């Protein structure tokens, strides 16, 4: 006997993500899901970004790591409200699922926030698959990685709404071909906007910060 099912395996996560989306809309907060491989400079980019946004754009951050609260400590120095999620002390999960975001978001004063940024676990594979109820996804690639990362991890670059190419201050010292990297991103995602910047020297930060301000003003709805 065959039983027809036709059910999405990630339906439970998608239902939870929809619940988050309603909560964020009700509180009037724009939510950005920030993803990359480990070491691309997400936290440094955020620290510099928050210093330019706050206090004009009141921002909160949920930061996910398998362990330690090092990132939360760094981010808190900017004055932003920060919640650290640790998925496990030894090992743990490879992505932040929607229910973890809900649990953290409910500990924050969402109504007081204009913008909530979720710094996902460093991983170019799994976070791409899990909707958390965000308004937009940004992927960060740094010039110390390979130009072909977008071709190796197509789903991540396919689902991203915008991309950042970070650490451009290092370009003179590397063989990295920035044009090829951007071309590869656009092969996987035609029309993708890419912000080339250096979180360290803050070169190229302004267009990215402006994009955030515009998105918050429009609230993405």
């Amino acid at each position, binding site marked *: 006997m065959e*039983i027809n*099912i036709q*059910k999405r*395996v990630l339906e439970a996560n998608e239902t939870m993500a929809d619940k988050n989306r309603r909560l964020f809309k009700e509180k009037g907060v724009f939510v950005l899901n920030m993803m990359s491989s480990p070491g691309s400079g997400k936290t440094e980019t955020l620290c510099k970004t928050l210093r330019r946004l706050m206090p004009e754009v009141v921002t909160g951050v949920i930061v996910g790591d398998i362990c330690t609260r090092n990132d939360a400590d760094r981010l808190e120095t900017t004055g932003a409200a920060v919640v650290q999620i640790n998925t496990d002390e030894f090992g743990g999960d490879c992505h932040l699922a929607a229910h973890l975001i809900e649990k953290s978001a409910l500990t924050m004063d969402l109504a007081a926030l204009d913008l909530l940024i979720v710094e996902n676990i460093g991983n170019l594979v799994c976070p791409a698959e899990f909707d958390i109820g965000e308004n937009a996804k940004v992927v960060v690639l740094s010039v110390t990685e390979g130009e072909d990362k977008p071709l190796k991890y197509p789903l991540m670059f396919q689902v991203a709404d915008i991309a950042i190419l970070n650490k451009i201050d290092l370009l003179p010292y590397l063989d990295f071909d920035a044009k090829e990297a951007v071309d590869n991103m656009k*092969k*996987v*995602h*035609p029309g993708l906007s890419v912000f080339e910047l250096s979180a360290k020297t803050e070169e190229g930060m302004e267009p990215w910060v402006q994009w955030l301000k515009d998105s918050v003003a429009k609230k993405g709805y």
Partner: protein
Amino acid sequence: MHEMGIAQQMISIALEAIPKDLPDPRVERLNLRVGRMAAVVEDSLKFCFEIISKDTCLEGAELVIETVPVKARCRQCHHEWEVSDVVFTCPSCEKGEIEVLSGRELEVASLELAD
């Protein structure tokens, strides 16, 4: 990397679909649809399924995976094509933004019970 969680979800979806009044049901085959772009490794999924289906009525069931190709449509010229080599540039007009029509599926399609 999250295949164990996926396997767990699959099993609970399958268990829910089996009528409660069936005496001693035994699943022979579980049919899945997995898109080529889904972040799932087939061998890992089979391995995880084998482990956590133990002591359930899915123990020993065959996992049959139908792979769904990646298909896209150009928003500019409306051309539809099957994407290969992860290049999503429209082969017809080479400039439009595109929408992905298939390739991200991760679905339990059906299950087959032993008579």
